[in-house]
């Protein structure tokens, strides 16, 4: 070891074969520790980078409140623990549990509608006496898992009948969650399931006709929407029409983003957030805080990190040995990007305001635990590869 340190200070012009060997050994050693606890180095790097950045931004948006950071730190620790635990589980266990988890999840969603606790105008919580949780969070993973396992039972691309069954499997929890009402989560779960269907090789002709069907269903959907949901869609198209009501979020968020410029106003210098013009600045609208304080440069770097994490997820999916693993891993990776897209689209005024947090940055624990659990599954798929027989 001391010799190694010496080498660093005085690098030899010609590297002796012995030393070269030692370096290689030390690198293998580092990755092999991660291998042994079934973690993926690149994903861990990306996740930790986002969490550190999250702490930096939350310090600013939360009014320099350390206790808020500590609370979020505890959640991060819990989420990382969940990720590590799931990464240890053999992918086959997920496959075995898929339909059970899905079935229990659907039952709990029904239970929520019947006996759930109301919070923030929606019925999302199930109170089990000792703790409260949102069954919809379980479904974020259970739906893509169940659909992937179901479709991969038979050779891909799936038959029409199986496709129909798969869509039904998606529709049931989506409708139940939409009724809570939790439009954002319903949308994300629908997309995570549909991504599996798309990856499974659904024919382009069917896909197109499905899209046309969805487009024509929009007016029907409008009919079933709650008033506040309709208002959000309406104000999307013309936020200035209601500057003090529903349009306020979008107007203030656009001002925050636009006034950030190329370099931003600097950390802790954002006036839109610090003077409380920007609503929900630590949660759903934290992207606008980043935009105001770190400018376009900061945003592009952040988006790059998101894309790299997703790219690693897609690579893992491509490397996966079983079809259901490919479908599941691909869905987890792309859904992660959907999160980012929906949140950023909402904050920049491209999409309606649906309550979707910015992954791993926004304040809040529930969605972060689910996200990291998803990454745990990804890592499990990747790191258990070699131990399985082909």
């Amino acid at each position: 070891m001391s010799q190694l340190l010496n080498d660093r200070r005085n690098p030899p012009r010609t590297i002796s074969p012995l030393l070269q060997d030692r370096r290689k050994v030390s690198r293998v050693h580092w990755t092999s520790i991660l291998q042994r606890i079934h973690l993926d180095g690149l994903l861990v790097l990306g996740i930790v980078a986002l969490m550190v950045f999250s702490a930096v931004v939350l310090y600013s948006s939360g009014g320099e409140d350390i206790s808020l950071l500590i609370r979020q730190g505890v959640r991060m620790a819990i989420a990382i623990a969940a990720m590590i635990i799931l990464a240890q589980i053999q992918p086959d266990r997920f496959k075995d549990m898929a339909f059970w988890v899905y079935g229990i999840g659907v039952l709990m969603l029904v239970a929520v509608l019947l006996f759930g606790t109301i919070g923030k105008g929606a019925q999302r919580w199930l109170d089990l006496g000792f703790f409260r949780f949102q069954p919809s969070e379980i479904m974020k993973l259970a739906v893509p898992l169940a659909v992937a396992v179901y479709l991969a039972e038979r050779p891909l691309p799936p038959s029409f009948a199986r496709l129909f069954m798969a869509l039904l499997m998606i529709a049931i929890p989506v409708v139940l969650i939409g009724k809570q009402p939790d439009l954002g989560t319903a949308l994300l779960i629908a997309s995570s399931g549909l991504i599996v269907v798309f990856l499974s090789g659904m024919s382009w002709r069917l896909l197109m006709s499905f899209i046309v069907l969805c487009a024509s269903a929009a007016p029907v959907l409008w009919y079933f929407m709650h008033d506040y949901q309709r208002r959000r869609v309406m104000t999307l198209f013309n936020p200035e029409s209601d500057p003090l009501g529903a349009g306020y979020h979008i107007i203030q968020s656009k001002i925050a983003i636009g006034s950030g410029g190329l370099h931003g106003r600097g950390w802790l210098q954002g006036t839109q957030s610090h003077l409380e013009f920007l609503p929900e600045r630590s949660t759903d609208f934290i992207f606008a805080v980043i935009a105001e304080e770190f400018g376009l440069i900061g945003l592009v770097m952040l988006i790059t990190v998101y894309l790299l994490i997703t790219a690693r997820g897609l690579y893992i999916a491509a490397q996966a040995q079983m079809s259901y693993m490919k479908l599941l891993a691909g869905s987890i990776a792309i859904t992660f990007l959907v999160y980012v897209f929906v949140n950023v689209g909402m904050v920049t005024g491209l999409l309606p305001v649906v309550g979707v947090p910015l992954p791993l940055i926004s304040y809040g624990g529930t969605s972060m635990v689910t996200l990291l659990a998803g990454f745990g599954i990804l890592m499990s798929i990747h790191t258990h590869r070699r131990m399985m027989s082909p």
Partner: protein
Amino acid sequence: MIDPRHRLKDHFRESRLVSNRLIIAGLFFLVLFGIIIFRLVMLQIVDFEHFDSLSNRNRVAIEPLPPQRGLIYDRNGVLLAENIPTFSLEVIPEKVTNLDETIAELAELLSLTEEDVAAFNERRKRHRAFEEIVVRNQLTQKEVALFSVNRHRFPGVDVVGRLIRHYPQGTLFGHAVGYVGRINQQEMQVIDRQNYKGTLQIGKNGVEKQYEDLLHGTVGYRQVETNVQGRTVRELFSEPATAGQDLYLHLDIQLQKAASEALGEYNGSVVVLDTRNGGVLAMVSKPEYDPNAFVTGISTTDYAALRDNPEQPLFNRALRGHYPPGSTFKPFVALAGLELNVVTEQSRTYCPGFYRLPGHEHRYRCWRRQGHAHVDLKSAMAESCDVYFYDLAHALGIDRLHGFLDYFGFGKRSGIDVPGESAGLSPSREWKRAQRNQAWFPGETLISGIGQGFNQTTPLQLAHATATLGMLGTVYKPQLVRATKSDSDDGMQLIGGQQTDSLPIQKSSNWQAVIESMVEVVHGKRGTARHIGEDLPFKIAGKTGTAQVFGIAQDAKYDAETLAKKLHDHALFVAFAPADAPEIAISVIVENGGSGSAVAAPIARKLIDVYFGIETEKESDEPITE
């Protein structure tokens, strides 16, 4: 073709299919994020200026810093007008979503009365939505604390600490100093609005109005960062206000107090002038009012009570009260006679108790029915013989009399430095023709000669004319403010005090003759004011006057017992002292006081005692009627 259900799983084919789809999905999202980046570039680079200015407009507000109003002191440095801190509850309607609800909640929290709410609704009509409106003035410490705890419930409502005007001497200087009140619509049109941003009050009367420009100062401002509720977060830049200048008046609180107390329950007025510079040492008008009532906005009922009071407490008698000067006019008429060579000091007239114009039957009565027999200037003045002055006035004629009285400022504004002064009335042939379209009758000249008839003078005019007489024709403009002092200067800036005119009287012996006759009034054996001439180290020159309010028929007797109080004569007295080197000139008018000798003269003596620091052992309580 094999039935797909029985098809064997082809791992390689499936793997390629899913991998292709993964790549397509990846590319699809790359495009989506391309759109996002494009959107961000549009917002942050292309429209940066637009959003940057919106952001600044969001957060930066410019607040005026109202200047501190100048203080007003009497000549001894006693505070007459000061600024005291007060907390008021103010609301900016624009920032409140439901104003009525908010007011209702505030009413409950701070137990506002229905009257408070009604007054607020009244004010609300007169203000625009972005202006702060007072809900309640003069909050107690407890109310401030109570609101502060609940402040989060009331966006757009705030407790504002302000300095408000306070007049520590209460009613004593109400008429002279005046008061400030809320800026009204007409004043809005006149003032420099920029300079009055943040100022709620403006001088309405007296010195406060006249010296508004000096007292107000220059507004400052500060740029502040505000949060979404409009509350100030921090200051970005500030330009401090320049406080208004302090005013030091000629008024002397001791004299003012003495004059006010001496008038007692009577209505009337006292004016004391410094003969050497025109400074107003005391200016009292009774009844008085409390200027503090006007500062935060007087209620309609309270104002109506003051306005409709038959005693007219808001009416400044010293400046605007029209009184017949009566016998206090005689020194000026006498001087006219001497100067125009109508009489000499030695000329004698016989007074049988009445005067008859040649060829007329009407008897113009002397106040003393039995007459004064032979009188010269000195005795006619001392005993206030009317017949002597009837004769003199007749010999002068109205044209010469009017022309001469003009020198002393009768019928003209003195130019005192407070608004609202009245010119009084000094009648002339032309005036009567113009106003009444009537010829001037010779009899009217007679009664003008004893200060009755059409003659109307204000207490200030009488004091001013007396001072001019005492100073042998040197005229000083009456002046309330003696000096100003601004924060930046170390010393005071004296203002006024310059001689404004000098009367064209040739012979100084004429002045001496009149002044000697006035000394005789106070110090002569038969002087009508001899009871006030005792125990003095110097001589007083004075003249009593009793002005008729009610015309008494020929040969009828004036009987105070049977006449209603409102019809009693006005008691007057003018004086200057010391007679040979005057320092102060006084005019006293006691409405319906009866006799000038008995009521008005002792008041003047009291003021002379106070001014010169003379200790008197006993009050002279032996009145002598004219």
